[in-house]
């Protein structure tokens, strides 16, 4: 059972499992680094928009980038809370 990113608890680490979006949107998310298998930390959780970051542990970048995803977008990214 995967939960939408919008529902993931604040401060949790999640693994992106599925992106339920058309090719355009999936591509846009991928360009920004959100794709299947990526580990994210939920900095601010919903309801409403969420902020996620690419944590040290999961990625190469020592400076974790931060992204805002609107609620609609965050509902389309399905994650597993790890």
């Amino acid at each position, binding site marked *: 059972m995967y939960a939408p990113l919008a529902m993931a608890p604040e401060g949790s680490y999640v693994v992106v499992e599925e992106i339920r979006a058309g090719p355009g949107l999936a591509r846009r998310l991928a360009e920004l680094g959100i794709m299947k298998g990526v580990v994210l930390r939920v900095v*601010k959780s919903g309801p*409403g928009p969420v902020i996620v970051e690419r944590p040290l542990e999961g990625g190469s970048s020592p400076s974790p980038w931060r992204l805002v995803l609107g609620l*609609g977008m965050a509902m389309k990214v399905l994650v597993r809370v790890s």
Partner: protein
Amino acid sequence: MVKVALAGNPNVGKSAIFNELTHGRAWVGNWPGVTVEKKVGRAKINGLDLEVVDLPGIYGLTAYTVDELIARNYIVEEKPDVVVDIVNASNLERNLYLTLSLLEMGINLVVDLNMIDIAESQGYRVDSSKLSRLLGVPVVATVATKRLGIDGLRKAIAEALKRRGEARRIVDYGPKVEEAVARLQSLIESRPELRSLYNPRWAAIKLLEGDQNVEERMRGYASGVEVVSLAGELRAMLEEELGVDLESWMVERRYEAASRIAQACLVQVKPRALTFTDLVDTVVTHKVLGIPLALTTFYMIFQFAFSVSAPLSTLIDWLFGGLLYDAVKGSALPELVKSLIADGLITGIGSILVFLPPIAFLFLAVSALEDVGYMARAAFVVDRVMYRFKLSGRSMIPLILGLGCNVPAIMAARPIEDENDRKATVLVAPCISCSARLPVYVVLAGAFFAGYVGSVILGMYVLGVAVALLLALVFRKTLFRGPSTGFIMELPPYMVPSTSNVAIKTWERTKRFLYKAGTVILLGAMAVWLLSVTGPSGYLGPSALEDPMLLESSWMGILGHALEAVFKPMGWDWRAAAALLFGFVAKEVVVGAMAIMYGVSEEGLSAALRSSFTPLTSLAYMTFVLLYVPCLATVAAIKGELGWRYAALAIAYELALAYVAALSVIGLGLLLGVS
């Protein structure tokens, strides 16, 4: 001329590099067929004249977004001699994704590793010589905001101009996909007419990804049709074998390569501690504190913009309305010419320039906050509210600028990715009460609601915002139906804003406002002047502007009388109606026009108004002024963004809305027993 293009993600300091290279010798145009801005400048390197083009900020090279398509088409069609890819050193992985995409196109690339100071403050540095080796292209480190490394960049560009670009194979798509790429590539290379269209390997990759833009162009040739259909077959076969969507597969491989290179080139200098950004974000994006903090910030922006600029506005008003006006009126020119210059030209120019200082300071504050990184956070905070009205946090900046002037507000809607969101934002922006409407409220509220002036004015602003948001919801549920593609935005690390960057941004926005609003308002002012000094009986002479009796027989007076019937239920007389006509040029003109028509000075207006309005009808009048036809410049801005049809729609809906709203005020008042 030698062409150099600048490419890069948003938030990498691209415009700062552009400004450094061109020293401000730049101009703004539009990319063909779209409203996206095209910035072009001139630079001189080693005595060679260069044309520098600032490509839109992009994350990749797909054909899905307008910006990416523009950048791609420019590279394919204009074939720039060198492309400088500006990479944010503090966000290497994501930025390298674009670098790899650019390298695949086989262009002559120079990588500018910018913002190395931010990376260092975060505890690490980038090994630029290793990066250069891995990418196979020159890498220069810069800090554009502090003007460091710009000479190195110039040198690298000069060196690169001596070379030609070549495609580099850095991303490995796996044996099966690579085999398909090679097959398509050799087929393309065997056809001279296709070979010259794109870099063959890039075209092969894009065809496998199912890129419609490349497919379309290929289909223009008989041999291309064959290539496209082979690509389709190969794609279906590979998707079957790999069990995934091929496009996602390619993106993931590319991202993997970017990740690998980023990892190899990053040297951790000190462990990452809780950064300043983390700390500030905890407060600024707080669920409870976020919104009041944002509101306070916006309030301070306005306080700053209006207080600081007030003396300047007064000065301009005195200069145009007093000094120049009197000078012309007192000159020995013929009466007609004097009136044309003083009442038409000077009054027209003055009415625009009076708004210049507050708007310029508003731009300054917004540009500085954007540079600091706060605006992205505010958009996050506000998104929660906007979402209920089917807009996103992206619509926030346009609506805020709208409080200053609706024209820049409409232009600021451009970066909204979702077309439906963008259109809805543009259409509702005129409902936000701009500073030009303020004088009308001040005069009417002052005359009828002494002691409650502030509350009445605040009420008008709140009403404007509420109407704008509700209308957005209505538009998104009717005209622009369909799901929003959603809102996704980077949160850049906080930075000290660079003075030159903020100054240039402010200047560009202000210039655009002046140009756009200036030309239209001036033409409108001239038209109003003409309609006031002429009538069915012919030329009335400029004294019509001073004599209410004479003005009544001008075209303007006749139009006002015609409108009186329309506004009968609201109880406004022909003078109030005619003033609304003047307001079409620019809403602040309404006050001056009323003064002319009541035959009093602006100071004596209160008394005159009290004899023809009641508190209730004045409230209805204010509501009408808030919502009725946006001024000419705003209509022109809407036309520029969405075309004539939507501009007409805006006029129509606003008139209807204003009428209904004003009538409701009257009805409500009567119901409550006030008059």
